[in-house]
């Protein structure tokens, strides 16, 4: 019996319908994921972007003898609640550093109190009726406005939100990740190379392999406890330092790098190894000259993913004490330090409204760095690949 096209089409219709249905479903899932992403980013941007601007007001600053003793005296009494106390506190030291200021009175743009900042941004503020009227008046005169908040990127933490910045945490993160990279990358890659290219396939190596895979699945907080026990209690590495944080994160990143490196090595076709052995390479020469260069893009992707993961990690670092309050930027591997996610975590616990803003601001900076890192990874990878 033969089938006409119509017979077959009738049958096919059902199959086509199923295909369409599945396609619709997966597109829906994708759409939903995209929607979440868009929602998340807009929320972060709306909440975080205001943190990058900061209210400043133009006031008369009186660098009198009295002000060098009692900084409050530098501005007139009615302006005092509007000016950041953090700013005022710095007046004496500025006078000491710049003697020509002594005895002069200047009209200057100074950092406003965070309540003024919140008021200008249209949020709820604790300013009194009188002060609100004063701010309105200053604004009308062009003597109060929102300016770019450079301080956020250049200063460390502070208890006053208008003074708080992400810089000390960013430096801490950088130092910590440097330690992580320097420790986890060579050890991870060499371990993977050994397991994949040199080790015999026996019980012992299988056991090691299973354990490495398990390590990657351990909750990160346990790595913190491990770091605390090994590095701080046993080796006496200074607490809260980028060194101990980096070592702890290296423990956590190691399995990620090992696994991704092994995958990358495994994806190098055996024909390349045979070619190397065929011309008389030793095993190490085969690995170094032929296998590793081909596996490098994969290894780098793994390393960057591992580092990005480590960068966002908070729990293990809290355990090794990296939530310290660090007002000053210190570029030392052994001094107390904090990292960006821990800084964000600390800010998120502050009761003041202004801190919500800088929390989101900090998240935006963290995200920007992560996205930059990933983009660099992709670009580097493309470079590597384009060679062949």
């Amino acid at each position, binding site marked *: 019996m033969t089938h006409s096209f119509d017979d077959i089409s009738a049958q096919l219709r059902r199959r086509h319908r199923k295909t369409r249905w599945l396609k619709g479903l997966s597109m829906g899932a994708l759409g939903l994921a995209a929607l979440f992403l868009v929602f998340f980013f807009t929320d972060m941007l709306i909440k975080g972007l205001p943190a990058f601007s900061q209210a400043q007001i133009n006031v008369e600053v009186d660098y009198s003898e009295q002000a060098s003793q009692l900084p409050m005296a530098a501005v007139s009494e009615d302006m005092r609640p509007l000016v950041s106390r953090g700013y005022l506190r710095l007046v004496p030291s500025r006078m000491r550093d710049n003697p020509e200021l002594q005895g002069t009175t200047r009209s200057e743009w100074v950092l406003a109190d965070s309540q003024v900042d919140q008021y200008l941004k249209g949020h709820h503020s604790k300013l009194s009726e009188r002060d609100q009227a004063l701010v309105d008046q200053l604004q009308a005169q062009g003597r109060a406005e929102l300016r770019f908040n450079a301080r956020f990127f250049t200063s460390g933490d502070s208890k006053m939100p208008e003074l708080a910045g992400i810089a000390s945490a960013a430096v801490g993160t950088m130092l910590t990740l440097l330690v992580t990279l320097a420790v986890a990358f060579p050890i991870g890659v060499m371990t993977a190379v050994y397991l994949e290219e040199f080790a*015999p*396939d026996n019980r012992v190596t299988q056991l090691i392999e299973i354990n490495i895979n398990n390590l990657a699945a351990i909750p990160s907080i346990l790595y913190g406890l491990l770091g605390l026990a090994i590095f701080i209690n046993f080796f006496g590495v200074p607490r809260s330092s980028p060194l101990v944080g980096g070592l702890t994160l290296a423990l956590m990143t190691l399995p990620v790098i090992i696994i991704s490196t092994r995958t990358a090595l495994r994806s190098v*076709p055996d*024909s*390349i*190894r*045979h*070619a*190397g*052995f*065929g*011309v*008389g*390479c*030793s095993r190490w*020469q085969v690995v170094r*000259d*032929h296998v590793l*260069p*081909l596996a490098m893009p994969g290894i780098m992707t793994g390393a960057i993913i591992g580092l990005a993961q480590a960068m966002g990690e908070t729990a293990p670092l809290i355990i090794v004490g990296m939530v310290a309050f660090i007002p000053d930027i210190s570029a030392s591997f052994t001094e107390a330090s904090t990292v960006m996610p821990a800084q964000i975590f600390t800010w998120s616990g502050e009761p003041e409204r202004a801190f919500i803003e800088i929390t989101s601001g900090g998240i935006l900076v963290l995200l920007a760095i992560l996205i930059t890192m990933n983009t660099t990874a992709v670009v580097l990878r493309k470079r590597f690949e384009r060679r*062949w």
Partner: protein
Amino acid sequence: MNMNMSLNMSLNIPASHESLSSMNRPSSGEPVSRNLSDNHSLGVRVRDLDLWYGESQALKSISLDIYQNKITALIGPSGCGKSTFLRCLNRMNDLIPSVRIKGLVEMDGRDVNDSKMDEVALRRRVGMVFQKPNPFPKSIFENVAYAPRMHDIVSRKADVEALVESALRDAGLWEEVKDKLHQPGTSLSGGQQQRLCIARAIAVQPEVILMDEPTSALDPISTATIEDLMDRLKRRYSIITVTHNMQQAARIADYTAFFHLGEMVEYNDTKAMFSTPHTKKAEDYITGRYG
């Protein structure tokens, strides 16, 4: 040339020649080895070679002599152990963990499988060309220059360049690639890639070249080029090649060995093998009545 350690110098095993001629009487199914002209120098001597992959035996008591500056073809149905045998000659089987080898493979008076034999040194003297072209993912130039540099055969830039050119010329590829030496080797066509692999193998100036179906993936023109090439190369190298193409074996090989189910059934001068095979199996295979 620094290669005056050629294989025949230290090899003097007249006994084996005698034992070979005594085996000349063929009986079907028995391995047949004969050496009609005695003036060839011996390159590789294989005796009672057994090889197992785990539990299954892939080579059964292989004995044969391979002569210098000749082309020896290995023929036989798929899975009979030709590639396995070829890999025994440069110990590529070491890379397969399950392999177990018994018997003698002798080159230059040394047992290849001896624990004192350095397989890297062996592979420097026994080059290999694989069935599938596998150039390194480097430039054409680097593909050829890599191994000689690694073995310290050459180090000065001008010497490296001269060696690369001569290897590419020998492989019949120079004219096609001389203007694009720094493009990736993988950008060449399949036949060109295979010739590049041959150039890579001869650049280390080996004495024996193993070729595992070097033309199986190539068109007739590339095949002809490579056959010509092998014919020219045998002046300087001993070539052992695997082929599924009977015409090819008849065209290029001086000797032909017929393998079947892990045994070497017949080994003879190619002309004799193709005109008057001594065993039924070989005859059936050659005339196409078998698989």
